[in-house]
């Protein structure tokens, strides 16, 4: 048995396809991306190595990048906090009811499996000045006319502009089911003995939640938060489909849309790679931070 399982050839056979694919499609391109990010690389033109030029431009001169960073970080913080609160809240409610638990669970989870491209378009129409929400507000008499209502997706005032806030709520709507499910799975794994013992000691339900449930699901909080963080940094579909290209200029960019525009609209492949690398570094750092601060404490 042991000899069988140490069969080197077999191991290589098993690992090889995945390993080769992974190396060719992920590792090598990443190295290339890092290299390109130091180059002036445009389609139809030869590659020219320019050192850190792209990064200097990116962080000192690029207004769209500033907006994109601001918006992406806002998305991340917003989704980490709201998904944590809403997800946990829903999970707690659903574990406390019996009738219809599955029904509600399935309804809230539904948008997670739907195409965010399609949902993005759907919400875009809901927030279009002449349709959806504004039409509803007008028919209830809250506003005189559709066009009088808020310009949900086109108002550019404020530090965080309204469209970004609207989109982050749509994202919450779409993805909170995911966090809820993760927390529910973890909560249902906690033995009921603990709660019974606590109840005998005179522990109220809310106390039990904060003193027992929360600490016990801490590792899952870390996992859910990292998933949220990476997911919201990668954010593309909703933004791309809810705000038509060119609308709002540079103000509604997130990292992914900025990269897409620079690389594929303006042909600046090297510059696009630099944005990609920034995104990668942010993902890695955030994951590390969350795991360090949320997860580790659970062992102390």
């Amino acid at each position, binding site marked *: 048995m042991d000899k069988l399982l140490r069969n080197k050839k077999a191991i290589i056979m098993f690992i090889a396809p995945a390993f080769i694919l992974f190396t060719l499609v992920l590792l090598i391109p990443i190295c290339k991306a890092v290299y*390109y990010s130091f180059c002036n690389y445009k389609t139809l033109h030869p590659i020219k190595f320019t050192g850190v030029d792209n990064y200097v431009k990116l962080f000192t001169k690029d207004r769209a990048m500033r907006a994109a960073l601001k918006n992406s970080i806002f998305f991340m913080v917003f989704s980490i906090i709201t998904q944590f609160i809403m997800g946990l809240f829903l999970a707690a409610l659903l574990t406390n009811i019996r009738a219809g638990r599955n029904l509600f669970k399935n309804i*809230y989870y*539904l948008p997670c499996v739907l195409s965010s491209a399609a949902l993005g378009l*759907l919400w875009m*129409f809901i927030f279009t000045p002449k349709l959806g929400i504004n039409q509803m507000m007008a028919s209830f008499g809250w506003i005189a006319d559709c066009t009088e209502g808020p310009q949900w997706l086109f108002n550019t005032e404020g530090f965080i502009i309204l469209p970004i806030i609207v989109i982050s709520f749509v994202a919450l709507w779409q993805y909170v089911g995911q966090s809820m499910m993760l927390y*529910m799975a973890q909560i249902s794994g906690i033995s009921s003995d603990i709660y019974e013992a606590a109840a005998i000691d005179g522990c109220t339900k809310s106390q039990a939640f904060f003193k027992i449930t929360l600490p016990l699901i801490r590792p899952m909080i870390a*996992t859910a938060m990292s998933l949220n963080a990476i997911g919201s940094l990668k954010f593309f579909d909703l933004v791309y489909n809810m705000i038509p290209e060119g609308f709002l200029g540079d103000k509604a960019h997130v990292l992914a849309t900025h990269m897409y525009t620079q690389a594929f609209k303006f042909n600046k492949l090297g510059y696009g790679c630099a944005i*990609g690398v920034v995104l990668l570094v942010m993902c890695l750092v955030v994951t590390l931070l969350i795991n360090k601060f949320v997860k580790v404490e659970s062992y102390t």
Partner: protein
Amino acid sequence: MSAKTETISVANHRTKVIHGFIYAFLILLAIIYLLPLAWVVITSLKDDAVLMISPWELPARPMFENYSFAWTMGHLGTATLNSFIVCSITLLFSMIFGAMAAFAIARMRWKLSKLVLTYFMIGMMIPVHCVLIPLFVQFSSLKLSNTLIGIIIPYITFSLPITIYIMAGFFEGIPDELFESACIDGCSVYRMFTTVGIPLAKTGFMVTGLMSFVGNWNELLLAMVFISKEAKKTLPVSLTKFVGPYHTNYCQMFAAIVIAVIPTIIVYCVFANQIVEGLTAGAVKG
């Protein structure tokens, strides 16, 4: 005695009120979840003029033309087929490759297994965005852009980390005795994989299969960059680009959204419990 029953009934009463609130809240939330979807279905059966004047009325005569327009003119028919081909092939290969690698990592004995697992796991943290450009350049020069295989390869790769991670968990969970008895029966390690490992990790296949299928079915960015030809576009791309430059027709657009979403909703309704549980199981392990 009576005081005690009273407290209990008060407590009962209080729980009932609380439960009432909980249900009211849950139902309200469910409406927020379902209303937009219902709205898009109803609107997709109207025409633009009616939509602008009386948004809330049900259509007098359902306009199924909107659907046939979206299906043929919007190329959504082709796109659905393409999506299906891409996702199925991706599903098949990511499961085979993933299970093979997971088996070697979880059950076989070698020094580097932890390291290799970590190598694969890093893939989970890497956003597709940062390999998009080099991959696009590379695939273009290999004439792989504008082919379905050109998006299938990256899709398989990006499905691998989670597949390997979850499958490794499932393989680890299989009791040692089963492998030992297979060994005594004279099975090779390959037989062990196919006759013991694979059948016993069925749930794992279900989970990873669903995750990769759903994920790839909805993927937009990579497909949008790699595919420029109408005949090769996948569903999310066709849908996104359905808006013509000179003409916007809301109701047809809504029909297109419904077409894009309905298959997933139907599958979800049929398998909701399995999907939700499977995906949770997967995510918990992930």
